[in-house]
Every structure is written in C-alpha cells, then in structure tokens.
C-alpha cells in the first residue's frame, strides 16, 4: 500500500505553493497529499479530476503546461482497485506534481483529459488497453499497443504474463512437427 500520507485535515507541507492552492480551491475534493521522496502528490476525488487538471493547467501562477504522463496502478484485490496517476510539469516555474485518483473496479470510468492536452489521446488509449479503464469524452478509445482481437487487459494483476493469444496458428511441417 502506498499511503500513510498526510490528510488535509492534519495540515499540508507548508512550503508547497501548489498543494496549498489546490487545497484552497478544491478543499474537500482533495483526499490526501504527501511529498515523500521529494514528489508532491495529491489524491483527488474521481468526479473532480477534470476540474483539477484544468485548474492546474490554466492557473497563471501554477501554469502546468505539459502533461508528462498518464498511467495507472492495479491494487487488486484492494477496493478501489485502480489508481490513475497523472504527472504534470510546469516549464515556466520548473515544478512537477503528481495527481492521483482512485477508480473502482465495478465502474472503471474517468473523465478524459483530451480537451486539455493533445497527448492525452494516446496516453488514455494506452491506459484503456492495458487496464480497461474507460475515459468519458475520449474521441476514439481503442487499443493502441495490443491488437483488436486480444481479449483482456494485460497489465491487470489477474492477467497471467504467459497467456498468449496468437493471431497465427503455429505451422506444421511435413513431418507433423511444429
């Protein structure tokens, strides 16, 4: 488990402008924050993710122009099962932040970040392909790394690593051997 993080009711690391502004703006939607290993991280409520990302991008002081990465972690069998992780970078102020949000396995949906950043298109397709988390508002959510005939989502913890789904049958030579 990742968290023994400081919850907002206990107070935030005072030196962090970003986390304080997030707390001031979003308050109860901010479930927990921490800055372990030097990375500022905030865990937000699932419904607010689009607003949080939009705020971080458009706010003049924070200005997180670059979406570095979107990925997910599967915490099977814990519920909520998935944790979708966004890394953002501010080129002008040289800051980084990580935003996480929990997604349950019975309703694996999340709002898409494609209106904000162009790269979110492919990043969300990869999360869909590997984990099976749908992004509402994505223009074209289909597999990107695996082929369409593949069934299942490989990076989930309950997908065995060796389970192959070949597209071609292995060939048989004249002696009947593969």
């Amino acid at each position, binding site marked *: 488990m990742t968290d023994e993080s400081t919850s907002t009711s206990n107070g935030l690391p005072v030196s962090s402008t970003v986390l304080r502004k997030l707390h001031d703006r979003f308050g109860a939607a901010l479930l927990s924050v921490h800055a372990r290993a030097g990375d500022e991280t905030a865990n937000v409520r699932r419904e607010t993710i689009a607003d949080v990302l939009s705020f971080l991008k458009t706010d003049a002081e924070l200005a997180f122009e670059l979406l570095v990465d979107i990925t997910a972690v599967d915490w099977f069998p814990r519920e909520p099962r998935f944790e979708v992780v966004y890394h953002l970078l501010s080129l002008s102020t040289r800051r980084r932040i990580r935003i996480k949000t929990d997604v349950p396995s019975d309703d694996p949906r999340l709002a898409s970040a494609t209106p904000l950043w162009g790269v979110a298109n492919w990043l969300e397709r990869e999360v869909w392909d590997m984990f099976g988390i749908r992004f509402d508002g994505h223009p074209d959510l289909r597999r990107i790394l695996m*082929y369409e005939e593949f069934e299942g989502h*490989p990076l989930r913890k309950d997908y065995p690593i*060796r389970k*192959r789904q*070949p*597209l*071609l049958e292995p*060939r048989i*030579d004249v002696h009947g051997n593969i």
Partner: protein
Amino acid sequence: MALNALPPNVALTKVDAAIGWARSWSLFVYPFVTACCGMEYMSLASAHYDLDRFGAALPRFSPRQADLLMVVGTVNHKLSPVLRRVYDQMTEPKWVMAFGVCTVSGGFYDNYSVVQGIDTIIPVDIHVPGCPPRPEMILDGLMKLQEKIRASKQEL
C-alpha cells in the same frame, strides 16, 4: 584432348555446385528489422564488419527481389501476420535467418505478446542466437548458411 590439357580459364564442375556457388555469394537480404538487433545489423552492414565482402551488401526492400529474409529482432503476435505475408511473397529460392535470440526462441520475453521463436510461423534455415549477437557471430552464421546453400540441391 586430354583433360589436363584444358586452358586455365576453363573449369569443370556440376551444375548444382556452380549454381550453389553463385547463389551463396550473391544473397539479396531483406532485413526485417524490428528491435535492438537492428543496431548490430547496421554495424554489420557498415565499414568495420563489412557484409559486402560476402556479396550480401545490398538490402532489397521488396520481398519479390530478395532471397534471404533476415528476421532481426523481436517478433510479436501483432507483427506475425505481417512476417508471414512477407515470407509468402518471397520467390523461390529463399532462405531465412533468425537473427537474435528473440527470433530463435523468444529470448527472455516469455510473455503474452512475443512469438516464442519464429520457426513456429515460417521455416528457418539458420538460427543465430545472441542478445544481440556480435557481428562476428552473424558472419559465422552467414558462412554456415552459405555452406548449406552450396550443399543443397539447386532447383532451377
């Protein structure tokens, strides 16, 4: 005229040997390059470990014009129909070299996405393991393939 009175520019041989000699020294390579082994292929084709001295310098990127299919680097299940199609489009005589351990047996990528050896898809004439193999190893493999070509019955 006695046989030992032949002029020096005349040789006697069998048709198979002559054609085999010609085919082995003029291989047109289709480098089906996918991954890290491609770096060693580029080294091989360059000045230090010259592939040209084996007559195999010119890559032909059309399967119809190539006779040696060098599968260089990992083949995964998404790519396997493409490999099969390229192999099928090549005209006889054709040979296949499995370059690198990913093509020989899947390498250490024993997972949901990698083909465990391309000989499950296409027939392979010579397997050259290594991750990636040194250029000298590939040249050794190429020389063994040349011996195999020379020793086989040549279809006309």
